[in-house]
């Protein structure tokens, strides 16, 4: 298995280079270094000299990909792409365009993201599986058909609606929890109730429907009929027979998400004032902070690759027949 993991990690390098190249190209298609300079310097009294000085100071005074004026290898190495990318692979994220240390910011903001994402993820899976199993138990009945209808309806509603509706009802009208905010001076959980609740409720439609489909596939298998014929209770059939056998597709969809939980949620964090990595990314995009954008995309790519590897490893746990060679 170790050899497999090492091989997968080596495969990750060209993927990361490709992702980095794509991010770089997409960013600079819509933003020139001059645009970035103006964005950072403000709109008033920005002279060409000031723009040039900003570019020199921040390393944006070179060509993007190919430096025609440099000789030899310098044609590639004396470029913005090379200089900005090499440091990433050394995990030196440098400073944001506004001068803050990105590593410090990421390590600080990771925790609020996790504080929201982990309970939302865990409670969400638990609720979705419970609901899906209940619906499977009544498969073919009117309850099942209504449940599918409700799932589709829940899926069709915009995530934003859940957020605004949740804030309006729970925080504004009923005044049960703060409408938004997050501070570390105790009682953090008070700020997490609403975003977690919104996250879980918003995910029930798609989550429960998906699990229902997985469980139904298993529910029609011979071993289930055999278990039922042997007199096993419905609860036992669902949890001891169907759930373990449906684990492979569940793991495929779930484990890959675990590392990405660090990245937070753009909308939830923004609306609930959670100072996490999701809102960090959103702010960076808005303020054209390429240093943060490329770092976050890079970290996101790494976490996704780790998630895929973990998924593969989890298969061996869920199904002993699987071997990673």
């Amino acid at each position, binding site marked *: 298995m170790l050899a497999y993991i090492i091989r997968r990690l080596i495969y990750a390098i060209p993927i990361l280079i490709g992702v980095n190249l794509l991010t770089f190209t997409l960013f600079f298609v819509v933003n020139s270094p001059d645009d970035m300079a103006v964005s950072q310097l403000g709109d008033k009294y920005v002279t060409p000299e000031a723009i040039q000085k900003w570019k020199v100071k921040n390393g944006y005074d070179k060509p993007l990909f190919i430096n025609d004026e440099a000789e030899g290898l310098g044609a590639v190495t004396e470029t913005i792409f090379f200089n900005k990318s090499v440091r990433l692979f050394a995990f030196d994220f440098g400073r944001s365009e506004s*001068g803050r240390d990105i590593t410090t910011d990421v390590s600080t903001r990771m925790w609020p993201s996790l504080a929201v994402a982990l309970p939302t993820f865990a409670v969400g899976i638990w609720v979705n599986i419970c*609901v899906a199993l209940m619906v499977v138990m009544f498969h073919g009945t009117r309850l099942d058909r209504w449940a599918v209808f409700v799932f589709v309806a829940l899926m069709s509603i915009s995530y934003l609606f859940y957020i605004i509706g949740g804030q309006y009802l729970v925080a504004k009208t009923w005044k049960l929890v703060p*409408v938004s905010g997050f*501070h570390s001076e105790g009682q953090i959980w008070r700020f997490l109730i609403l975003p977690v609740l919104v996250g879980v409720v918003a995910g029930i439609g798609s989550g429960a429907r998906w699990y229902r489909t997985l469980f139904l596939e298993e529910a029609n298998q011979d071993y289930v009929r055999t278990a039922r014929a042997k007199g096993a209770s419905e609860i036992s059939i669902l949890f001891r027979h169907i759930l373990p056998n449906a684990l492979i597709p569940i793991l495929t969809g779930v484990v890959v998400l675990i590392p990405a939980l660090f990245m937070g949620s753009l909308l939830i964090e*923004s609306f609930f004032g959670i100072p996490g990595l999701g809102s960090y990314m959103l702010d960076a995009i808005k303020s054209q902070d390429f240093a943060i954008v490329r770092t976050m995309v890079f970290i996101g790519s790494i976490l996704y690759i780790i998630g895929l590897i973990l998924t593969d490893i989890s298969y061996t746990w869920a199904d002993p027949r699987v071997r990673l060679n």
Partner: protein
Amino acid sequence: MNILCASRAAIGLAAVLLLSGCGKGPWNNPHPPNPEGELVYQSMMSPAPPKHLDPAISYASDENLILSQIYESPMGYHFLKRPYELIPLGVGEDPEVTFLDAEGNEVSEDDESLAYTRYTLKVRKDAHFQPHPAFATNEQGEPLYLFESASEGAGYTQIPDFPETGHRAVKASDYAYGIKRLADPDLGSPMLSFMSQYIVGMRELTEELTGVERDGWLNLDDYTMEGLEVVDDHTLNISIHGRYPQFVYWLAMRFFSPIPPEADRFYKNPGFIDRNLTLDWWPVGSGPFMMVRNDPNSEIVLARNPHFREDYFPSEGEPGDLEAGNLADAGKRLPLVDRIVFRLEKEVLPLWTKFLQGYYDRSGENHGNTNRMFDQAFVVGPDGVEMSPEIASHGIKMDPDVKPAIYYYGFNMRDPVVGGYTEEKRKLRRALQIAFNVEEYLAIFYNGNGITAQNIIPPGIPGHLEGEAGINPYTHRWIDGEPVRRSIDEAKQLLAEAGYPNGRDARTGEPLKLFIDVQSQAIGNTQMNWMDRVFGQIGVQIEYRPADWNRTREKLLTGNTQIYSYGWIADYPDPENFLFLLYGPDGPLNCKCDGSNNSNFESEEYDELFRQVRITPPGPEREAMVARMVEIYRREAVWLYAFYPKDIYLSNPWVSNTKRHGISKATLKYINIDDELRQRKRAEWNQPVTWPLYAGALLVAAMILPGVTAYRRRQNATARRSDNN
């Protein structure tokens, strides 16, 4: 067991929600308890945290809001008086102005040999910097926190982590140090290029510093700037080239704040920058407040500077201030609150909800946020816009604010269709100006929060005239005591005289089609439809070219635009700060730069008058020149339309001294809070509604019960139903 899952979830949720009420006070209070005995002003930073807090670098209004409470520039503005009045702040008296010839001899103001103007600043003797570890010293008087390596100071991640602090009086050399920092190319101050034109020796210092090798702190006191002379601890001479009376306004900006070299050295400690311990994030000032917490992701907290000089609430204002209660705190020692908390609010909806719940004292700082929540905040009554019943029942107060700013759509005067200086072109532009009914536009799209600009200079700035004398006679008439827009028929007539009868080119018969470049986020379909309709009345077609700001800026730089949108907010209350928007040499096509004259307007008379206005002190002569320039602006019809933006700020009933100041942000030291009323109102407005918790639990139970019943029935059912049953 699945049923158990659901019931556990319901019970868990209800328990957590009930537990949320276990603390003191309302359940939905988003703030931690205030420090015992401290009066805290609850404010917000919205929609984004500040990027820079170094006075040499920062140039955004949201950053200025924070910096203005921490730093004291040499000059400031009177809180209540209007028109805006400059007052000494960091200096004890108005700067003494001396005119010099090239040899340094004193000359009169109108002497032709005048080469320099010298401003002598007398620094206050009672001004003190805030307590800060940069001033902490050991028994030998050496700095306590100077480290050789990053590991030595690794335990300090924030300024409050340092156990020892010190403080000292502000000296003239601190102001000089702050100005030298503007010249430091390593900092990239946005003021460098502009100020280098004026302050003697600034350009040379920049060049000198450009080649300097740096290893840690560079003591700028080791370098001289010709235009700066520290006479003694409390006297500083600043020399500028020629005459520039507006320089005194620049002294009221944060760029000229005193910077202690100790702080600059402290922040250059090895490894500090990696923990964001920089002057850009932890300011060191002599103002009424000091920063005690800086988490730009969440909140910035300012506390009273214990060494702030004696400063008192003004005892006089403009007429009406006494009656409005704006002088109730006259003579009280400032600041009136102990602490200011700026919490990050990215979205308006939660911000607004918290304001109505009493958790924010005001609806906004840089924006009133009432425009986006207009329907909740106001209703249109018989007497115009009134507060909605909910707002009115809360006892909330309104503070209207006409900003010293102007938003406009300008013509590109180099454009072959709408540009040019012939009478036909003027008539074409005037026809378009008349057709664009600004009053209706503001009523529909800005909820009436704006004033049609009859003048390039907004209210509150010398040169702006009210009443009949202030109207633009080319677009309006004065009828029954108010300006009335000229009729569409007059616009059609002008259009015909311009060579476009019924909106068609008289020579080719082609319809007149115009292009408007506008930022995507600044225009919506309804606005486009409205403009299509108003220009359709005179037969003119419009095509919109929405783009992001970067692309729009590129078009302005290359002159590749016909009509563009733009805006300007004053740096200082002088007509020169608006008239320069049409100064010929500042046109992007002339200067090949980000010039301010995006219309590329050129008029020799206007340019010459502008040069004179720039160096002429206030007085009748200058007023006449400004009036003439305004007349040229109106006659040439350089802009399609313009308006002065208006904003309404709301304050909860316990907040006082909320009068808006259009220029200065250093006004939070005047804010006062009735904390007892605040606590009472918060408790009253935020009684939790608990029935949904019980209803939710019942609902879950109601969902579970049929499931349990059906499950049991199924478990107990026989495999096949008997026909006999």
